[in-house]
Structure formats: C-alpha cells, structure tokens
C-alpha cells in the first residue's frame, strides 16, 4: 500500500463537491425580514452563552436553568404582551474561539432578538464587538469587567448585570480599612482580570499589598490541581491577620481548608462575592469529608458583600418568591437554591421588566434606548438601582457589607443594613439612599 502525497487524485474534487452538498444540507432557511429578528406576535427569542461543560462550568451552569425557570413562569402567566419568551442557550466551554461560533449560531440560526445574561469575561470579549456592530442588544452581561460598560460609545448595546469588581473592592476595602486598619491585611487573588480589578479597587480604598508578602497569587484554575498550600503559607509567614480572597468559590474553599490544614487561623476572612457562594463552598468541602456543620462553623464570621439580599434571607419577599418559582419551574440537573440561582432569577426578572417596559412595539433600538434612559428606575431584588445612563452601562454601583452567621446566611455587619455606593473610577464611597420598591403582585414586573 503506497500513499500518494500529491493532489493529483480525482478524489479530491469529488470531495470538495461532496462537502458542498453536505454544507448546503446544513444551511437553514432565511428568516422573515419584517421587523427585528427574534420577535413575532407570539414569541421573543433570547440568546445566552456560558460554559456549561469543561473546567470553568461548575456553578455557572446553574444560571441558565434559573433564568429559563423564571421565563417559564412568565410564560405560564401569559408571557410579555402576549409573547412567550424562549431562551436559547449555547455552551462555549469557556473557549473564546468557540464563543465566536456559538454567537454566530445564536445570531444567524436561532435569530435571537437579544443576548441576555451571557457569562464569562474572556469569552465575551471575543464577541462583544461583533454583537454591538450588528446592533444586537447585549443585556445583563454576567461579568464584572468594567471595560465592557464604562464607555458606551465603544459598546453601545452592552449592559452589565453585576456590580463591577472595582466597585465591590472599593466598598469592601473601605469597610476593612476602617474596621481592621490596625491589623495586617493581605490578599489571595487569581491573576486574571477579576483578581487584578479587585486589587485595583482595594488600592483606591487605600489598601495596598506587597507581592510575595501580603499579596499571594495563583493562576486561575490551578487551585484544583496544584492546591494553595504555598500561597497560604506565604500569608501565614507574613503574619497576615485579615485575609481577603478575590477568586472563584472553589478556590475560596481550597484556601479556607488549606489554612486550617497548615494551622493558620487569620482573625478574619473577607471574600469578594463571586467567590463567596456558601452553597458551593460547603458542597465542595462536604465531598471532601467536611460535614456541613463544620464548614458552617468555618464560614461563620466570614465577611463578604452583596448588591442583593442574601440567598439565605428568607425574610426577603424576592428571595421567597424566586425560591418558589425555582421549586416549581426549574428543570435543570442541579436546582439547589444558591446565589447562582438567585442571580439567574434576578437577571430574568430584570429582562422581563425591560421587555414589558418597552411595550408592544418591541425593537432592538427601543430596548437599548429604554435601558439607557429608564434602566436606572428598573427595580429588582437588588438593593441598589442599576447605574445605567448615557454615560455608563455599569449595573450595580452599590454593595452592602455582611458577615455569615452560623447558618451561613449573610447578615449585615452593623445593626442595620447600610448600602454604600460608588463608581468604577476614583469617586468617593457614600451611603446609598435608595429604597427598593415593593415586589409587584405575582413577582411579575410590568416595567418602569
């Protein structure tokens, strides 16, 4: 058997022809050209991309199921102005090269009206320019990277869904400096945009860290394989008394259990909200042989911040309503109630409110201009208003600081819950005077 390496095989042409036929078979029918794509009298199609598989997926893969559950609830009540909401979700496995393809699929095959709640900074960067160039709304992006939102001329259609990492770090940093100013404060952060943005925010609040001493770093994702022993040993050796964690929840779990392991007991832990999901941390530790009671004791007193009520706050009307909807409508593989589910529900809630708000005449332009002009008066479970304006598309510009109680519910650090507000720049941190409007009947918002 010999292989002929040159192209001089008639087979090659047959192949190209075959490929052509195959590709034709794959191509779909053109869409109706009337109004904007994705909207008919009976339906609104929304698109979302997130890592549902692969190393970056755990935790996030619950957000889309929560969103879909809320939309199903809305549909069960007759939809938005008679239109049912359909959420098309694509898995990009957190590979930016794949995100470009899944975005194209959502735009061209599913003909989505808008992107909603897409998860992931690195992956979203690869498509944000294209989505904006096409004039497609890119709303409630689940990334705290301020670069997406602070310059609406660059990305006119993109709107945030989280407080930026900088805002959160400024507020948390102010609290820590005031309360623990006499203690040695250190940080463990992952060396990506999330970690670096957080460090920048803390610096604005006057908290500066020394590399190799009070600042320990790790490559995002390696906490699961290489562990964090040397990092925690470094902080221990530097005599750090208050440890801040700016990393994902699985890294927080590894950090806390590693500290216990090396006999390091800092006076205080403070975790940026992204990495402070108690359910994720406790679940991970439980599989590692740490009973829930023990991990709850480990988490008690840990400081974190939030722009929304705590997922475990059963006295909050939004939390109880969302929890019920989650029980009744969530068809995902893992629907256990936690911050990820709360976040997904809230995103879907805001989306529904905005769609109602735009009214019968739903176009992409109308949605974007609605969010820019009226977005700041949309209400949701959040305890601060959305920061949307013509000048910025940042979402929540405020956080309250809390500590976990013995049943891992985040409780305000003072007697009352004080919400602080600030910007992603060098502006001051002030007390917010916002009063969250009451939840509408049936947890169904009809727009501002």
């Amino acid at each position, binding site marked *: 058997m010999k292989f002929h*390496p040159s192209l001089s095989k008639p*087979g*090659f042409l047959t192949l190209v022809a075959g490929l052509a036929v195959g590709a034709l078979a794959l191509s779909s029918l053109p869409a109706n050209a009337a109004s904007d794509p994705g909207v008919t009298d009976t339906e609104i199609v929304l698109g979302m991309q997130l890592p549902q598989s692969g190393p970056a997926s755990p935790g996030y893969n619950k957000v889309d199921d929560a969103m879909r559950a809320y939309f199903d609830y809305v549909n069960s009540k007759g939809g938005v102005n008679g239109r049912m909401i359909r959420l098309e979700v694509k898995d990009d496995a957190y590979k930016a090269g794949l995100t470009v393809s899944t975005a194209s699929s959502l735009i061209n095959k599913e003909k989505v009206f808008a992107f909603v709640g897409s998860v992931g900074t690195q992956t979203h*960067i690869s498509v944000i*320019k294209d989505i904006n160039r*096409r004039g497609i709304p890119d709303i409630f992006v689940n990334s705290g990277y301020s670069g997406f939102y602070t310059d609406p001329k660059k990305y006119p259609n993109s709107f945030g869904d989280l407080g930026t990492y900088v805002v959160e770090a400024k507020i948390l940093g102010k609290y820590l400096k005031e309360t623990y100013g006499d203690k040695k404060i250190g940080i463990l952060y992952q060396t990506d945009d999330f970690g670096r943005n957080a460090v920048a925010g803390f610096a604005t609040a006057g908290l500066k860290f020394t590399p190799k001493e009070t600042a320990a770093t790790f490559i995002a994702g390696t906490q699961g394989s290489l562990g964090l022993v040397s990092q925690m040993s470094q902080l221990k050796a530097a005599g750090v008394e208050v440890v801040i964690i700016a990393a994902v929840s699985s890294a927080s779990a590894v950090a806390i259990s590693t500290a216990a392991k090396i006999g390091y007991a800092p006076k205080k832990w403070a975790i940026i909200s992204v990495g402070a999901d108690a359910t994720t941390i406790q679940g991970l530790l439980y599989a590692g042989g740490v009973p829930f009671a023990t991990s709850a004791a480990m988490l008690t007193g840990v400081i974190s911040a939030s722009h929304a009520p705590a997922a475990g706050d059963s006295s909050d009307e939004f939390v109880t309503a969302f929890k019920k909807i989650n029980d009744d409508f969530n068809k995902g593989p893992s629907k256990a109630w936690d911050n990820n589910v709360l976040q997904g529900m809230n995103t879907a809630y805001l989306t529904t409110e905005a769609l109602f708000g735009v009214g019968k005449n739903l176009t992409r332009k109308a949605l974007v201009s609605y969010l820019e002009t009226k977005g700041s008066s949309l209400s949701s479970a959040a305890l601060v208003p959305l920061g949307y304006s013509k000048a910025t598309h940042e979402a929540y510009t405020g956080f309250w600081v809390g500590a976990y109680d013995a049943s891992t519910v985040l409780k305000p650090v003072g007697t009352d819950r004080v919400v602080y507000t600030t910007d992603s720049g060098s502006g001051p941190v002030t007390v917010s005077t916002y009063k969250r409007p009451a939840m509408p009947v049936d947890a169904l918002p009809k727009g501002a």
Partner: protein
Amino acid sequence: MFKYKRTGIRNLAIALIFTVAIIALGAILDPYNQGQLAVVSMLFIGVLSVTLLTGTSGQISLGQGALMAVGGYASALTILNLGLSIWFALVMAIIVSALAGLLLGFAAARLTGPYLAGTTLVLALALPSLAIRFESVLGGDVGLNVDFGNPPAWLVSAFGEIGYEQWQLYATVPLTCLALLATANILSSRTGRMWRAIRDHESAASLMGINVSNNKIFTFVVSSGFAGLSGALYGLRGIVGPSVYPISLSLLLLTGAILGGLRSIAGALIGSALVVFLPDLIEWATRPLALSEQIGNYLPGLIGGVLLHLTVILNPGGIAHALHRHKNK
C-alpha cells in the same frame, strides 16, 4: 523534469478549483455556516501543519496550538502596535511562528515519539502563561482585540453586500489556497521524499546521506509557519488571548488530521471539516431525543474520542485513505 512541472501545474489547477468551490459555497450558505466554513478553512491550514510534521516527517506535536498562539499574538501586536493592515500582520505571523518553530526544532530534532509529544504538550501548557507574565504587552488573560475589519470597497461593489462571516471566509480562502499549494508542492518535491524517508526509517535515511536533524528542524520551521498563519486567522475572528488557544486546540488539530487521514491533503480537509461540523451534526441528529444539557454538551467529546479510536484501530489511514482504497477496488 517534465513530470515535475506537470505535477506543479496540476497542483495549481486543483488549488484554484478548491478556492473557487469554497467561494461559491460561501455565496450560497447561510451566515452561520459561512462562519463555520471560515473556521474549516483556518483550521485546515493548522491541520496541514500536522500533515507535514506528523504525517510526512513522523514527528508528533501536541503543541501546535501554542504555535498558533505565537502567530496570533504576532499578528495582533503588528496590527495594534504598528498599525499595519491584517495582510502585513499575517505575514508577520508566519515569520515569527516559523522562528519559534526553528527554536523548537533545535530541541525537537533530538527527541522522538513520546518524548516529543510530552515536551510539546508542556509547551502548550506553558506558553499561554507568558501572556499573563507580560500582561502590559500581551494583554493578560483578557487578550488583544483584533478582527478582520470590513470588506474592501471594491469587493462590495463587485459582489454586493458581504456579511461579517462571509468576509471572514473570503479573507481566509486565498491564504488557505496558498497553504494548500505550498503543501502539495512540498510533498511532491525532493524535500517531501526526504521527509518521508526519515519518517519511515530514520537510520536508513541517514545512511542514504540525508541530514536527518537539519531536515527535522526544517520541517518544524515550515509546519510552525503554517500553524502560525492558522492561529493568526483564528484570532482575527475577534480576540487573541489564552482562552482562544487552549491545549484542547492542539488536540483538535491532531484529531482532525487523524480522522481525515494523516498523510493526505484531502484527508486534512476532510478532518478539519469533520471536527468543525461534528458538534453541529450531533446536535442536529440528537435533537429529537431532547438530551439534557449535561449529556448533550459532552457528547461531541465522547463521539470524537470513539471515532479517534475506531480510526487508529480499524483504519489508521483515515477517511481519505479508505475512500481511495474503496475506489481502487
């Protein structure tokens, strides 16, 4: 001599027919599949780098994705820092990644089989961390924003409205054509014969007077240039960053090369089309089953792995080889 010239002309003709066929396909497909076909054309160049390196000279690399990253960063830096057009950037990508291949080749020429596989795997792991180490230049994990830009006015006036995906395809295809032509000519040249001799029996090749290590290094240089071009085009779809060139990209190229046929250009084309369209095909085929997300999202990986196995055990020559054999019966 006459025979060689005839092969050359035939290679040229077929490369041109390929180009025209893809352009024609691009005109009739929907935008999504135009985009997918653009990815096929980009990865085809990357798979050809495997065809040359592994299929022809017998050296295995699990780090072609890293060389794609080198090309991607070289082109992005050319565009962003020097302000040059994407065409200059692509040339720069080829040059820089070929130089990287030269460096790698010096180390690789001493290594065989699994040693080389492991070393290139470590390379694929280590190179992206440079982007984080030199964040100010390489953009950290966020990466560098680049794209194909808008189609030139003359093209629009000649063909009418050209969509974004279509422009990606049309900008890529001429380069794919050049890569195809270059590969065909290398394979049918004296160099190609020397590489195959080294692959089949290194010691015998050396006894025949072939400078084995120089040829191995040269293969690395050429193959890396191909990978770099492929990576630069792949990055121009939106972003050059660590999450664009994960280790799994290297494995994807290798999978494509094996499934299609490691030793033929047609095989490389079939393989790249297969790895790009397989997830779509699986999704289409399993849609009636309404699989859960957790099953559905991992299904392409599972089926890809199974196909890889069936190929190496039952039909190591890949689809191209099987088709060829079938026709000769």
